[in-house]
């Protein structure tokens, strides 16, 4: 019976001519125009003239991994403040504003220190009033929201940014005739940001943390998993930062991080859409060429030591158990990444994949489960997320998953499974091109955080070279049950 589909397809494919007439991946690769400025900033341009739009992603290799003790959440805080304007945008008089901002920070520090040291309430109240008065004074110079408003008025869509462990990226889609506007805005933001409205934005960030983590049982569980998965490496810290750190960060901390890590040689920018590459390069040279060269940021020295045993955390909350199981793998750009992609497809992607068929459809132990591939620059992971079926505990699902992984030895991965995984991988590959913004993200991410943008395309040939034995070796090397990190959410006691 198992051979029936193959026979069926052979017949069908023989009878009906192929339908596609699209370019191959090599044609797509040849369309990428690469340009590097003397300051080290890199640009990747991909012309696509379907609609009068252009999407841009600025990938800055500066993330939570660059933070140190006491200062977690800094990269993310900076991302928020990067929307507050520059020395010309968002202010009525920067010179005067700068002076008041210094006074404001000083007033906050005096108030904050007094409060921390347990000063009497009258003193704290008086110092707080002085701080608020300075804040009021500073806000008098602010043209609130001018930075985002300029984009909004000009039809910007998808304006936002995100921060991860390894990078911060700023993205936007604009009508393509306004590409120069983006050049003017972003080159200014990357060189001349002013971190105004710091204190009110901190409250916003605290609300963000409450939403994703503190008021969300599964967010808390994930944070626990992350913290036990790494004992030395900063990947163990939450990207949003610890509550106490966020509350104590200063504008000077943000400025120092910006000066140190937002350096042009650590930025890759992708521009995808209805533009002319030659014209784009002229504008890039003029606007982004203004950004001065800076020294390289300090290298991260800490490496995560090998995991000597199982690490686990147990939480009890609510009525829906949840299983997170993490295995450390390889850093971004490592040749085994592709093998691990294919391994995760064989194991868990698609309804005929091993774990899905066995645990969801046959044994009905899991309601759903999937792998997340953490492609981190300094060390990736494969994280299984499992949703136990009603009546099943997270620990029971954990055992079932381990049994399935152990069964690989007796029931090795077949050529049929590998071939199917390769095709699925290729579909993923093409869907990365499905929108301008998606392609811009992948080009800039591969360029800055992996082995270079060409690696995005190299995979199409490399995937053909992976063998079943490679998958089995990777499973044995990386999915070692004795080196797993597990976070379990079990049903709360009545």
């Amino acid at each position, binding site marked *: 019976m198992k051979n029936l589909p193959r026979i069926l397809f052979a017949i069908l494919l023989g009878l009906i001519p*192929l339908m596609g007439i699209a370019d191959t991946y090599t044609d797509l690769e040849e369309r990428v125009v690469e340009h590097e400025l003397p300051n080290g900033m890199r640009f990747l341009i991909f012309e696509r003239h379907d609609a009068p739009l252009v999407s841009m992603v600025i990938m800055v290799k500066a993330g939570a991994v660059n933070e140190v003790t006491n200062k977690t959440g800094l990269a993310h805080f900076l991302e928020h403040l990067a929307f507050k304007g520059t020395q010309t945008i968002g202010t009525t008089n920067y010179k005067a504003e700068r002076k008041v901002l210094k006074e404001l920070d000083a007033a906050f520090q005096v108030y904050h220190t007094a409060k921390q040291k347990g000063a009497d309430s009258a003193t704290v109240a008086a110092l707080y009033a002085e701080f608020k008065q300075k804040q009021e004074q500073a806000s008098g110079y602010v043209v609130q929201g001018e930075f985002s408003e300029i984009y909004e008025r000009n039809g910007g869509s998808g304006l936002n940014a995100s921060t991860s462990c390894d990078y911060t990226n700023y993205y936007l889609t604009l*009508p393509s005739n306004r590409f120069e506007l983006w050049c003017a805005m972003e080159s200014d933001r990357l060189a001349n940001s002013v971190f105004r409205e710091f*204190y009110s934005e901190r409250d916003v960030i605290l609300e963000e943390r409450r939403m994703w983590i503190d008021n969300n049982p599964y967010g808390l569980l994930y944070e626990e998993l992350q913290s036990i998965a790494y004992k030395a490496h900063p990947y163990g810290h939450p990207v949003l930062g610890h509550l106490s750190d966020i509350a104590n960060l200063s504008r000077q901390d943000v400025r120092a991080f910006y000066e140190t890590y937002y350096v042009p040689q650590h930025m890759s920018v992708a521009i995808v859409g209805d533009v002319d590459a030659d014209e784009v390069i002229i504008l890039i040279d003029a606007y982004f060429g203004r950004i001065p060269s800076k020294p390289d940021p300090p290298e991260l020295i800490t490496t995560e030591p090998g995991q000597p045993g199982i690490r686990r955390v147990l939480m009890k909350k609510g009525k829906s158990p949840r299983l997170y199981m993490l295995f450390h793998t390889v850093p971004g750009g490592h040749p085994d990444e592709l093998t691990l992609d294919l391994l995760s497809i064989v194991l868990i992607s698609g309804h005929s994949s091993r774990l899905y068929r066995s645990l969801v459809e046959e044994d009905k132990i899991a309601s759903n489960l999937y792998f997340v591939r953490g492609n981190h620059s300094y060390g990736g992971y494969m994280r299984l997320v499992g949703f136990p079926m009603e009546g099943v505990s997270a620990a029971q699902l954990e055992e079932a998953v381990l049994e399935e992984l152990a069964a690989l030895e007796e029931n090795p991965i077949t050529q049929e499974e590998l071939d199917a995984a390769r095709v699925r991988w290729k579909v993923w590959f093409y869907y990365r091109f499905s929108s301008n913004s998606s392609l811009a993200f992948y080009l800039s991410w591969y360029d800055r955080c992996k082995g270079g943008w060409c690696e995005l395309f190299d995979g199409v040939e490399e995937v053909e070279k992976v063998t079943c034995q490679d998958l089995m070796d990777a499973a044995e090397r990386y999915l070692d049950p004795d080196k797993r990190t597990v976070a379990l959410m079990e049903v709360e006691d009545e």
Partner: protein
Amino acid sequence: MSRKIALLLFLLPLTWGIAKIKDPRTMEFPARLDFTPHQVDRFSLSNGIQVFFVEDHELPVTGITFLIDAGKNRVPADHAGLADILVDVIAKGGSNQVPKDILQDSLDRFGASFTGSAGTEEATFNLHLLSEHVPALLPLVVGAIRDPALPQNQLEVNKRQYLTSYQGRNDDPRSVAPRVFYKLIYGDESPEAREVTPVCLENITTEKLKKFHQATYRPCHIMIGVEGDFDPKAMLNLLERCMGGWQEPEAEPPDEAPLYTDHTSPGVYLVHWPGSVQSSIRIGHKGLLRDDPDYAASRLFCEVYGGGWYARLRKEIRVERGLAYVASGSISTNFEEPGVFRGVCLTKSETTLEAAKLMLEIISDLKTEGITQRELELARSSWLASFPAYYAEPDQVLSDRMEYAAHDYPIDFWDRLPDKIEPLTREDVNSFAAEFIKPRDLIIVILGDSTAFDGSLSELGEVQIIDPEVY
């Protein structure tokens, strides 16, 4: 030739290709761009099934959508979940010709994804795959939609998955607040708000799935959209071969249930959530029909109210006061019945009342004072300039055309909108807001730890308590 001109001519090539730095605040651009969305071609199969094609040959992939008038609103309230489960059992369960395992193996072998979901009005199936595999896989997928096997084992899996979800329905406060809000707005038996309870799941059997399928999955209920890299002639022939012979069944389809099933008293509803460190505030009332004469004005209103980066809710609650990370609002529109006017804010327990009052003030101010001329111009400029982004990808154009066709609206409804938006004045938007916003109809749902609030919710009105275990 003077020396100056000669020098200028000498320097010109040196400066060629060097752009002049401009100030982004003073750059000027035309308000609208010449833009023609991807062309959509429309055909009919011999049995009347409507087919929509958008070709795009850049990538060797194809997406095929089946839009079927078999949504949740055709299911009785005590069978909630039936339309959803049917979709899933079809997508995973195979047909009477090609059983479940072979369908799944085939899809996985060719890296294809075949998924489905049931919306309030329609069921949707999506097939995404490499174009070269369309001839092999499309017949299998159509077979599952047309003549599904509905295997008992697959039904059991789906029912247990729904039961699992139901048991954890109160675990994450972020999903409880919207559930309560929409139940209060639409009525708890509405297809927009009803829950799939254990009793409903008991009622769903293979026989019921089969009966519902026979009555609702019929040629006159189906539209097919294809986008990507394909030859339209070959595709039309293939679809005709797969689906053209499907005849209308005799069984009559079940009636559509109304979206608004109950009239809930406006007022303040509290979901007390001990230990919560953040409150969820939702405020709203009935929204608009898509073909409301004020639809265009409502789009600009939404930009100013809660949609834009600098909308009132975001500006006053988030940017100015730092009270929230999420503060937004909108007016949704449906084709047959009104959507929902809503505002959302998540704020720490200690500022719950402050934020709720602020939201109400903003809503009240928009009704009485309206938007400013500056807000109008910003919203209009933003809307007109970003219009092409709505149709950036072929699949967006395709789904839009199919949706309007399915509801007998002009297929280019959205394309006409810029011409309606452009001449709108502040008075147009404000007269819409003044009439549309009905403070006395507002339903206010607050989920949070009421012992940590910054005051009593009774300041907002009489408070009714909602127990999420039973609601």
